[in-house]
């Protein structure tokens, strides 16, 4: 496995061309970009620039929608969500760095619905890794990786963006 030297820029280019194709096939124009804190926002920023979007960038912090609150309490730091537009009737591209269990995406969609009724939501992730616990899949991915449960993948950034795979000892 190409550990520790995954080319993030290449994955973002793959994600961009995948999204171009997806939007064309589904006849969706002028989408809004919404990243999930923290890594998803970094990727959404890159895509937002590549698509020359004229809309502001949205950022979701799903801390208040997590399903593990009663087990672990509040996350230590919660940057407020910011959706500086009305999503009702709009096509939304929801962006995250890593899709793993699917729980974060579930929470993010619940939160999006509390802002309004989007016309559609498309899920774009940099890395689609194995280990799904919910019936959620990405529409567009930069790459897919088969990782064991003891392997972790983490995006660091925002500049430079680096993907690191590690294994719990």
């Amino acid at each position, binding site marked *: 496995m190409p550990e520790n030297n995954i080319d993030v820029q290449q994955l973002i280019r793959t994600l961009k061309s995948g999204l171009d194709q997806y939007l064309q096939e589904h006849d969706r124009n002028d989408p809004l970009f919404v990243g999930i804190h923290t890594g998803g926002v970094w990727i959404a920023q890159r895509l937002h620039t590549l698509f020359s979007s004229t809309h502001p960038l949205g950022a979701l912090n799903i801390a*208040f*929608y997590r399903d593990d609150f009663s087990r672990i309490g509040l996350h230590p730091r919660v940057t407020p969500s910011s959706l500086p537009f009305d999503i009702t009737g709009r096509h939304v591209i929801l962006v995250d760095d890593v899709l793993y269990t699917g729980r974060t995406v579930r929470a993010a969609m619940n939160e999006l619905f509390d802002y309004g009724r989007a016309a559609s939501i498309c899920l774009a992730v940099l890395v689609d890794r194995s280990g799904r616990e919910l019936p959620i899949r990405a529409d567009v991915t930069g790459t897919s990786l088969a990782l064991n449960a003891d392997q972790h993948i983490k995006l660091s950034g925002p500049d430079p963006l680096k993907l690191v795979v590690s294994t719990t000892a």
Partner: protein
Amino acid sequence: MTPHTIQLDQHGRLKHFLTTEGLNRQTLTSILDYAESFAGVSGRAVKKVPLLRGKTVANLFFESSTRTRTTFELAAKRLSADVLNINIATSATNKGETLQDTLHTLEAMHCDMFVVRHGNSGAAHFIAGQVAENVHVINAGDGRHAHPTQAMLDMFTIRRHKPDFESLRVAIVGDIAHSRVARSEIHALNILGVSDIRVIAPKTLIPDNIESLGVRVFHDLTEGLQDVDVIAMLRLQRERIKNAVLPSEEEYFRCFGLTGTRLRVAKPDVIVMHPGPINRGIEIDSQVADGDRSVILQQVSHGIAIRMAVMAMVMGAAPDSSGGDN
């Protein structure tokens, strides 16, 4: 255990919120930061997050209150909790049920949190000592002791306007002797690093030894307000006049009422706070209360965000394991 030790769990996290006294700066800053995140919820299409879904919050008000109770109620509802409002003055305690019996009855109904307002100092602390391990208590004002969520919403309001606590000059004006708000504010300001805290009141309304809390005492309003960044007004209880601690309302306003003229000695960008309800023409002039330096209505909105933050924090400090995932 004292109020400030009983309110923390073994990891130092808030499990009850009884007083600002004895907390560290990091805890107070977390409350303010979480409140900042929750403040956005009020502006959305759906003004709710599902954090406390399925939890039950009981508002136990042994003393009447409109704004504190309603903002606690709204805060709990915006966190998706179910809320019971129990006005104890008209309920079972009048039929001879003891406070302990009332608590145990409510616990048997699986309430997860008690928000307590009581005329006796130490009431919330007493209740926190009685409840089961998984039940949380928030002090919504106990006697002359503490009103920590009011103090924190005041800190939030200050930080929104003037984020550099260390450099601030803050004056608290009014009935310091009987005010739980003043006491909680003084502790919070000290913890957040404010070095110039002043209390301004007639001698009869200043408690002995207040200087030991790290404040300077003024008996002259104009002198005390010199160059201050923040003025925290207190509500004057009319009983103080009936009880002859003060000569008359007119006399009090003449000496300690906040007027536009007096405001001029403060910094030009001074903010004026008041916990409400306001006694217009007694402690504050209407022109000031409704003027451009007043942040009194912002305080009410901030109260919801602060109470959401505190409720979420104490409820999140449940005993258990850890771990997160994507």
